[in-house]
């Protein structure tokens, strides 16, 4: 097995990522106080999705991996969303 060169993520990047995550957390908490109706949940999930993507890409190193892993992760997320979608074929139309 050939030894692959490991990518070292600089401390500075990790601190910047944390700040972005904290700002996004602040945004979700703040948005709760505003009145967007059903959009509120959508916004909350969107922000959570962005936060999750950032954690996956930087902290979990997907950004630095070969193509296989990011593709598998995307596949699992799509699988989950499809299961959710198919389940609601039942619950939305009862």
């Amino acid at each position, binding site marked *: *097995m050939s030894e692959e060169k490991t990518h070292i993520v600089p401390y500075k990047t990790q601190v910047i990522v944390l700040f972005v995550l904290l700002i996004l957390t602040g945004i979700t908490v703040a948005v709760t106080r505003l009145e967007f109706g059903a959009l509120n949940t959508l916004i909350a999930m969107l922000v959570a999705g962005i936060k999750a993507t950032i954690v996956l890409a930087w902290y979990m190193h997907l950004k630095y991996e070969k193509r*296989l892993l990011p593709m598998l992760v995307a596949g*699992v997320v799509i*699988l989950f969303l*499809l*299961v959710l979608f*198919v*389940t609601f*074929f*039942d*619950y*939305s*139309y*009862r």
Partner: protein
Amino acid sequence: MESPTKPISYLDYKGEYKGILGWIFSTDHKRVGLLYLYTMLAFFSVGAILGLLMKIQLIAPGYTIMGPQTYNSLFTLHGIIMIFIIVVPGLPAVFGNFFLPIMIGAKDVAFPRINLLSWWLYAVGILIVLTSQFMGDGPPDTGWTFYAPYSFQTATNVLPAVFGAFVMGFSSILTGINFVVTIHRMRAPGMTWFKMPLFPWTLYGTAWIQILATPVIGITLLLIIAERTLGIGFFDPALGGDPILYQHLFWIYSHPAVYIMILPAMGVISEIIPVFSKKTIFGYKAIVLSTMAIAFVGYFVWGHHMFTSGMSGRALFAFSFLTFLVAIPSAIKVFNWVSTMHKGSLDLQTPFYWAVSFLFVFMIGGLTGLVLGSLATNVHLHDTHFVVAHFHFIVFGGTGFAFMGAVHYWFPKMFGRMYDANWANLGWGIFFIGFLALYLPMFYLGIMGMPRRYYDYLPEFHGGNIFSSLGAIVLIAGLMIIFINLVRSARHGTKISEKNPWGGTTLEWQVDTPPTLENFEEIPTITGKPYDYN
């Protein structure tokens, strides 16, 4: 380690531990595979006897040898044993462990210690399930599906049975992870994806289902445990819960689990047929792609188990449509196998008999599945003996026949001894006749309206049931001939050291018989395609 002149067989290897400890603490993938085999044979015997007892009860209406409560706990235990202990781990755990590394040119699986841990979790899970039979409140009577809300209302020992199944789920997940990593990282140089034999390919598809579907049953069983111990109310209509949601979660796993059972069986058949037809497999790529298609689409058809539960009309249409879709790749495979045999020089040996009879019963099982997959007929047949016959044709007829085929195909390689072919063929014949006599009448009984899971029935069903119960006795007789022949041959059969008794082309037929401890003294380089008979 000192260098012995001749590499030692995995059966003769003496490690740190002696005797049985040398097996239950061995991380050698071949020994782990055999551990699974022996455990499964033991519990398969128990499950088969439970089945026989039920059939004897049903030989006449009313009380024959047991009452309703005993009957309920028997079909529950029969289901739990056959599903969770036998067919779900089944082929991957036994033959996957033994032959996957050899067939892709590796010395072991990626994580040998986790592999041994899988067996231990499996064994512990079995022990936990068994405690449910002997504790105070009586054996569980819910059926292997543990349907809500009954599963948290019955006073019987549901908890240990559910928890045991949960632990076995972990075992299954670890096997899946091991196989995916092994296939990704440890194929021999030159073995590209499309030069990989078909049994490893089906194991790959299966392993993904094990990884992606098993956690669903894990959390569902955990929810049942929480429901029983904490009264949490997710599936209890009295607390606002929806019992149908339990069915959704349960079948999101348990339908893909059917493909955990059947995909590796298809892999085994794809190995046996070219070898005994002496012909290159027809449509290698089509078989590979249909395997992956089944694994994917099979994830979205779970609702066909719930057509009469009260789902929305749209969900009914969607699930029925998807169910018909998943039949296509399965049919593609059948065409490929038949085309492979076409104009081949057939070598009529025991493994081939099993493979051909597999095709026959698998087709009946598959086509009756479509009868159940279409909405109108399903309403009539739901929860009748038609369903029982259908899934026994798939699970016992499909996976079971393939398992028997696999045992007879790889037996000489695994034990370095040959079984008595005459007894093996006779066992197959009796078993096959018994199988058809046992399950074919159930289709008829189901269409006539005989419900499943009752210890009693109306007098008009008597004739069919006599036929079916006699079939069960014949089947058990065939099974005993097969088992006795195999067990005796494993100990006293004629020794062989020939590497390739059947004329196979995959890697396991190029290593020693029985394989050496490390399978390959030198990792081979692969240049050609598998199943090359030109």
